[in-house]
């Protein structure tokens, strides 16, 4: 139940934004630029949220850079593609709104903030579907390098990624290929850039947007966690927040924008809403479903609650960030030649090279007889050919084998060490090696989609993502259930206004980013669709709230 209006507000504003990720920062900027007095509450001591630790890609069909380069795209093509992917879990109107607004939003950000982008070579996540784009006509934009010294002392407030801090652009990373040819990366130059305060990836999105807020003198109140909405006559007029161990009341005469992420770090909410566990989320441990609770408190209708942005992870035991075990995302490792993923029976169960959100789905498959997740625990298995050529997490080719990788001289011994079916593993590897020789994976179509090749090794003939496992030593690393964030929450109008169970907007309440019922349904359109949709609905909510 929402809180009643207090006698006196501790802080007051017109538009109150909760959270400083890709949804919150554009919401604040647009509310300001449309004439409102804006305040932002950020739970942590750092600005940027999950967005700051992300790859920073933004999925923008029909964008201005494509036009400049003569790449043809249309809303209609993108619509056909997105509808096919979202599988009816998102409304056509919401998808259409996203596609209408995303090019305009990016153009606005480029024109009115220091953020800059380039076109990448990343294909849509199902380039084989109608309306999709291939890598040479990519819809994914990547941020350019940004000098954080522009922020002055506020630079210290930036959230920094524990894993994606190497300041290189998408195009540089494509050129140097740190995942295939790490020896080609100019590491000294990377060190220099870091030392000089240059950022990229997610930092290339959040740092310039934070600067845009500072330039506009938007007040960002750190270490302040909103916990409930304040309502009067069915209208949201502020929030209660925790600050320095005290509850404070913050009034917002035009609206409150929930941009404070999903619930991937809240055990109870995950158990209640998700069809399977997320044991090792890859976002920082900051999003605990506060937006969802505030939405429920205000009587919001909920949508897409069983979905999340799936992403397999792995850990290096003892490696910590923010005082807890760090969960590292697994992306290129599983896509490289000489690596497969198997279940306890030693069997493959997934196209290892498929896009992360989709390849996650079989990890939650339940065995109808045992009622257990039949593919868990899952293991990445690779051989010495892989170890000699490619990095696996932090284990670099040619360097010593770290303690956290299980290793054995034979597949049988490896299976025994990780407690999986040895005969099953041996048979699987023999079969897979045959597929490699035929250059065709009839079981899981690995390598058939152009996307599968993106994270592989294009020097590997004949296929960038297929290679035998035949040279001892053999290695194993457990694949864990990660997530980039959840994507269910309050349902919204096309302008980001939260609606109630009868479809009526709740005056004064908005949601954007992972805090809202996502436009993507259960799918992932392409690299940057998460940040893209977060930015679009933050942008729209900011404009709408300012105009109240």
């Amino acid at each position, binding site marked *: 139940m929402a809180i009643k209006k207090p006698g006196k507000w501790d802080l007051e504003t017109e538009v109150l934004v909760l959270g400083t990720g890709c949804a919150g920062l554009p919401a604040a900027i647009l509310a300001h630029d449309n004439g409102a007095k804006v305040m932002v509450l950020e739970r942590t001591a750092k600005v940027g949220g999950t967005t700051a630790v992300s790859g920073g890609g933004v999925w923008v069909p029909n964008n201005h850079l494509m036009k400049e380069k003569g790449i043809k795209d249309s809303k209609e093509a993108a619509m056909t593609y997105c509808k096919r992917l979202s599988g009816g879990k998102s409304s056509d109107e919401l998808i259409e709104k996203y596609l209408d607004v995303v090019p305009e939003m990016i153009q606005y950000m480029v024109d009115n903030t220091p953020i800059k982008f380039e076109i990448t070579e990343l294909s849509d996540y199902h380039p084989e579907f109608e309306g999709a784009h291939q890598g040479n006509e990519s819809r994914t934009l990547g941020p350019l390098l940004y000098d954080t010294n522009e922020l002055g002392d506020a630079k210290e407030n930036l959230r*920094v*990624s*524990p*894993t994606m*801090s*190497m300041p290189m652009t998408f195009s540089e990373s494509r050129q140097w290929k740190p995942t295939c040819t*790490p*020896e080609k*990366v100019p*590491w*000294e130059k*990377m*060190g*220099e850039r*870091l*030392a000089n305060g240059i950022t990229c990836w997610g930092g290339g999105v959040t740092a310039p947007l934070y600067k845009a807020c500072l330039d506009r003198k938007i007040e960002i109140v750190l270490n302040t966690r909103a916990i409930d909405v304040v309502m009067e006559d069915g209208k949201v007029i502020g929030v209660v927040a925790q600050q320095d161990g005290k509850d404070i009341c913050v009034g917002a005469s035009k609206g409150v924008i929930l941009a404070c992420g999903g619930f991937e770090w809240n055990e109870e909410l995950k158990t209640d809403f998700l069809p399977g566990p997320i044991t090792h989320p890859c976002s920082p441990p900051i999003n605990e479903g506060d937006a969802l609770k505030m939405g429920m408190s205000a009587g919001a209708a909920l949508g897409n609650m069983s979905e999340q942005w799936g992403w397999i992870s792995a850990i*290096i035991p*003892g*490696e*910590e*960030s*923010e005082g807890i075990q*760090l969960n590292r995302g697994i992306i290129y490792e599983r896509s490289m030649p000489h690596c497969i993923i198997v279940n306890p029976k030693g069997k493959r169960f997934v196209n290892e090279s498929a896009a992360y959100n989709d390849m996650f789905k079989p990890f939650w498959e339940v065995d109808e007889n045992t009622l257990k997740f039949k593919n868990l625990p899952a293991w990445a298995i690779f051989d010495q050919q892989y170890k000699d050529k490619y990095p696996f997490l932090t284990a*670099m080719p040619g*360097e*010593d084998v*770290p*303690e956290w990788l299980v290793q054995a001289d034979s597949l049988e011994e490896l299976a025994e060490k990780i407690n999986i079916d040895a005969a099953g593993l041996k048979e699987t590897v023999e079969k897979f090696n045959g597929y490699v020789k035929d250059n065709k994976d009839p079981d899981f179509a690995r390598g058939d989609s152009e996307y599968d090749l993106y994270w592989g090794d294009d020097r590997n003939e004949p296929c960038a993502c297929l290679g035998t496992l035949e040279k001892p030593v053999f290695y194993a690393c457990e694949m864990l259930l990660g997530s980039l964030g959840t994507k269910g929450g309050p349902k919204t109008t096309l302008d980001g206004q939260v609606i109630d169970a009868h479809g009526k907007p709740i005056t004064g309440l908005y949601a954007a980013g992972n805090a809202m019922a996502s436009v993507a349904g259960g799918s992932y359109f392409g690299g940057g669709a998460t940040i893209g949709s977060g930015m679009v609905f933050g942008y729209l909510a900011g404009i709408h709230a300012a105009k109240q």
Partner: protein
Amino acid sequence: MPVVEYKCIVKAPMEPVWGFVSVIEKWAPFLKGYEEHEELNDKESVWTLKGDVGVLSRTVKMKVTITNWDDEAKRVEFELDGINEKATGGGTFIATSESDSETELIFKLEINAGGMIGPVVNVLLGPMLKPVAKEMAEKIKARIEELQG
């Protein structure tokens, strides 16, 4: 290569200062991130430390070899060699009598991350070393002064 040197004046005569510094067990827990150490012989030991690299923290095992233990000059020199991480380095402890009641303690430490991404790790490591050296030296100073009453 990230290097740090930290000096402080301990309000105690040389004898108790050197007596304290020369027994590793006495000050080892003052090293930030110290978890344990195991002596292999009188020159070599293996240290387990939890160290910060940027916003990441890792458990690092290092072999420490004393290369020079000079009771006369009140000077200890040691080398570091990473066991589970590619890193090398070394350091010195020097105690110098300033007066009957004051001793200067100098602690010098250098670490060089190796491997392909060493240049990047070194950038992150650099700013972390100074506070580590300072905290350790200040804790040693405080403990000796406390023992002196």
